[in-house]
Each structure stands twice: as C-alpha cells, then as structure tokens.
C-alpha cells in the first residue's frame, strides 16, 4: 500500500553550509594602536603602567580594571626575553581567523613570563616534543616584514642559552 511505502522512506537530513565570514573594521583605540605601531615600525612591544597599583597593563589599556582608574601615558618597553611557564603541543590544525592562513602544524603554544613580569601567550620555535620539555629561557623572533598586526608580527619565541 502507498502509505506503507511512504513510511519506509528515509527523511532528508541535510547540512546547510554558510561559508562566507562576516566582515568587521575594528578600531584599535589609542592604546592598542600604539602597541601595533611600535611593533610594526620598531619591532618592539610596549605597554603602559597603572598610576595607582603601578602594575603593567597587558595589553596596554585606557583603564586599569583592578583599580578602576584611568591609566594615562606612563609607557614602558616590554622585555623580549622570558621564561616558559607552561606549554602545550598542538596537534590539531588551527587557522589565522583574520587572514585565513593555516598555521604551521603541529606547533607548541606557551605562556611566557617576560622579564618585566608580564605573562604573554605565544608560539615556541622548538617543535621537538622531547626537547620542549627542557625549554626554559626564550627570546622573541620578529618577522622580517611585519603586517602591523601586533603580536602576529612576532614569528615565535626561540630557545636561548644563558
């Protein structure tokens, strides 16, 4: 009978894909703008200091969230050397969300305590899982041609012997 045949038919489960990303034009604001400019032009990271608690902001910001005060223009240059605090070895691929580039895979990501006390998250150059266990001291390696993208203008952090 017709009704039995209809009931036997499999339902249509479809996947509807939307591939086009939404576009944005974000403003860096004054403080992040200075960080980006210094990174591009001088290959240096800079940040500002809270006038009340004296702690370094990261990233540089107009207001200290801890103290709820306007921070002002007490700018300092960040250290480009630091100590690895923790790392992970990423096996699954990720992508650069702004430019769509595939990031090198696999790669290690680490939290690095810079010598001025600021915690920075970035890539490590060392890709050997065994050697990674011993990495302590690292230094920033800047890309030859920065794109004016702040932290992305740094290629990675390289192991240094001291």
């Amino acid at each position, binding site marked *: 009978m017709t009704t039995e045949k209809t009931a036997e038919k499999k339902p249509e489960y479809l996947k509807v894909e939307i591939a086009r990303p939404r576009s944005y034009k974000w403003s860096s*604001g004054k403080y992040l703008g200075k960080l980006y400019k210094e990174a591009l032009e001088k290959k240096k990271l800079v940040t500002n200091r809270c006038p009340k608690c004296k702690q370094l902001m990261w990233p540089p910001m107009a207001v200290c969230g801890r103290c709820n005060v306007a921070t002002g223009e007490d700018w300092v240059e960040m250290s480009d050397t630091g100590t690895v605090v923790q790392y992970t070895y990423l096996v699954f691929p990720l992508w650069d969300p702004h430019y769509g580039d595939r990031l090198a895979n696999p790669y290690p990501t680490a939290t690095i305590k810079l010598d001025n006390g600021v915690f920075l998250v970035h890539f490590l150059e060392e890709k050997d899982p065994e050697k990674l266990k011993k990495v302590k001291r690292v230094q920033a390696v800047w890309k030859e041609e920065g794109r004016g993208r702040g932290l992305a203008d740094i290629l990675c952090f390289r192991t240094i012997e001291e």
Partner: protein
Amino acid sequence: MTERVGIVAVAQTKYSPNRADANEGELVYEAVRQVLQETGLKFAQDGSGIDATVTCSQDFWDGRTISSCNVMSYVGHHHSDEDKVAEDSLNAVYTAFARILSGHQDVILVATHCKESQGDKRGIENAAMDPIFLRVLGLDFLSAAALQARRYMYKYGITPEQCARVVVKNRGNAKRNPLAQEPMEITVEDVLGSQVLASPIRQLDSKPTSDGACAMILAREGKAKKLARKPIWILGASNCYETNYLGDRDLAECDALVTAAKKAYKMAGIKDVMNQVNVAEISEEYSYQELLWMEGLGFCQRGEAGRLLDSGVTQMGGQLPVNPSGGMLAGNPTVVAGMARAAEAVLQLRGEAGEHQAEGAKKALVHGFTGACGQLQGVMILGN
C-alpha cells in the same frame, strides 16, 4: 513595603557616525566615568558602593562572543557580579531594576555601547533571521521595516507626508540637543525627495549609522535619596516579544507593544497615558515607527497617529512632546537606543535637559525595541 528604585545618574557620549579613534571600552568609559564622578561611587564587595554591573552589547556587532569582555575593565566588573543583556539596552535597565527589587543588591551600574561603524549592518540584521530557512531571502531590518511600513500605511491610510513630518520634527528637535548626531533643518519635501532605500522608506526616513555609549546608576530608594539631589523613580516596566517569523504577524499591528505598555501602565498606575504622562522618548529607527508605536502605546486609536502628529500634540510645547532629544532618527546606535531614551527622559524629569527641555515634566514614557519590525518591545514609566 518594597522600596522604589531610583536612577541617580545618567551620561551619554555624543553620538557620532564613526568613532574610529576609540575602541568599545574607551567609548563606554566616556559615559561610565561621568556617572562615577557624579556620584562619587566606587565598586565594592561589601555593600559600600556599586554592588554589580549590568552591561548591554551585542556579540554580532562587537564581532566576538561574550562581548561584555570588550568593556569589563572599563565598567568595573573585575572579580565582581556582572550580567550581560543583549538586544535593546532598555532591557538592561529593566534587569538592573529587577535585581534591586529582589532586595539582594542596592546599587547597580548599567552601561551599553555599540559601534555600528565597525560591522556589516545588513549582514548582522540578516543573521537575526532563521539561519537555514530565511536568511537566503536576503531580508534585513530595513527590508522588513519597509514591508511593515507599506502594510501599516495601506491599512490605516497613513501618508508618506505624515511619516516625513516625524523626521522634520525629530531632526529639528535634535538642533537643541548637544549630544545629537545629525540635527537638520529640513522640510517634508526634502524627506520625500531623498533616495529610496526600500520603498516606501527613503534615506531621510531612516536613522544614520551611529556609534555611542550610555551609562547610568540605579539604586534602591534609601540610597538613591542620598546619592542624588533629584533621583528619578522607575514607576513601571515591562517587555513583550512577538514571533520571529514575519508571516505569523499582521505587520500593521504591534501586539507585543500593546501588551508591554498595558503591563507597564498597570504597574505605574497609568490609566490615561495622554493626560498622565508629560513627555515621551520613543525609539524610531524609521519614521513610520514613531506613528505605529504611538498607536501601540495607546496615545490614540489605531490609524490616528498621523492626525495626532499633524495636530501638533507631540511637538515641543504640545501636550505630550515625543522625542525632544531628536530620537533615533537624529542618530543613536541600535542596542544603545533604548537606554539613550531613558537617559533623555531622566534629564527631562530633572528639569536639566537644557534647550530641549519639555515644560513641567512629571512623568515620562520610555520605549525601546529591537528585532525586525519591533519583535521585542520594552516600555518604562519614569517619574520625579
């Protein structure tokens, strides 16, 4: 008896087409800083200051999930009680109001921001539609509004000239509001001669792209009286949702607004809105909306809003001035608009609206909405 909830401080940025010089946090801090300075309040965990923060922003506009992270350092919710409300910011004021009425919190900072200059407005609005069923039709809030305008004008005989007179009134009022983005000395002919965007809506029937922020501090009655010389009381508040799918609604009607208004009026003891309310700030992204919303708010019978406008009742100096600030049409971002209306109503009730002050305002009506064709409607009654 439950103590009332008062608004003790309000601040808005100047509204601007493109604040490329500031990120979201820096923008909202311009308003937050003013209300902190005005009240002398600090954030505190021991009940001695601001107990919590309610922010309003929209992830799609900010381009990140948990968009309140964009402003957390700037609005003081580091290690603190924080709540984020999306959609229209009048809902954030409603949330803060309810939190204080709960009796557990006394003082709350409410802050909202939106930078329309940063995002793809039509794409973001399209994303408010069902993702796999409706987005493919390319509808955004403009095209949805055009369908609603057409239906409303046809059903009730509202004319393009009457819609244009809303623009002339509001852009004209904006000339006396120093924070307004685009005050204009224009005529009905200017509006009717402007570019058609989606018929029958023309360029001047719609609001300009806008960036801005607003902040206010709410407190329970006992504290509000100490914190402010002239606290403004929230007498009634409500909201109501329509269905998302436009085909489920007669777009000439605004049932959600009718319901929201009835509930807010009941809470505030308003029986005759035209005689009990002295000034109204109504969110109108498109010119026809001020007329349709006035009907939904019960200012007149259905189809009578055009004639009510023509009679001059809603002009400055009329019985019930509508949008002395210039409204959304003079330039407010979506999201921020509802709270901007509330902030303007507070200035009116304090008698501190300067050149755009309406005479002798005792009670004010505040309206906010969001979504295609006003899917979510919020109404608040404030009094001094």
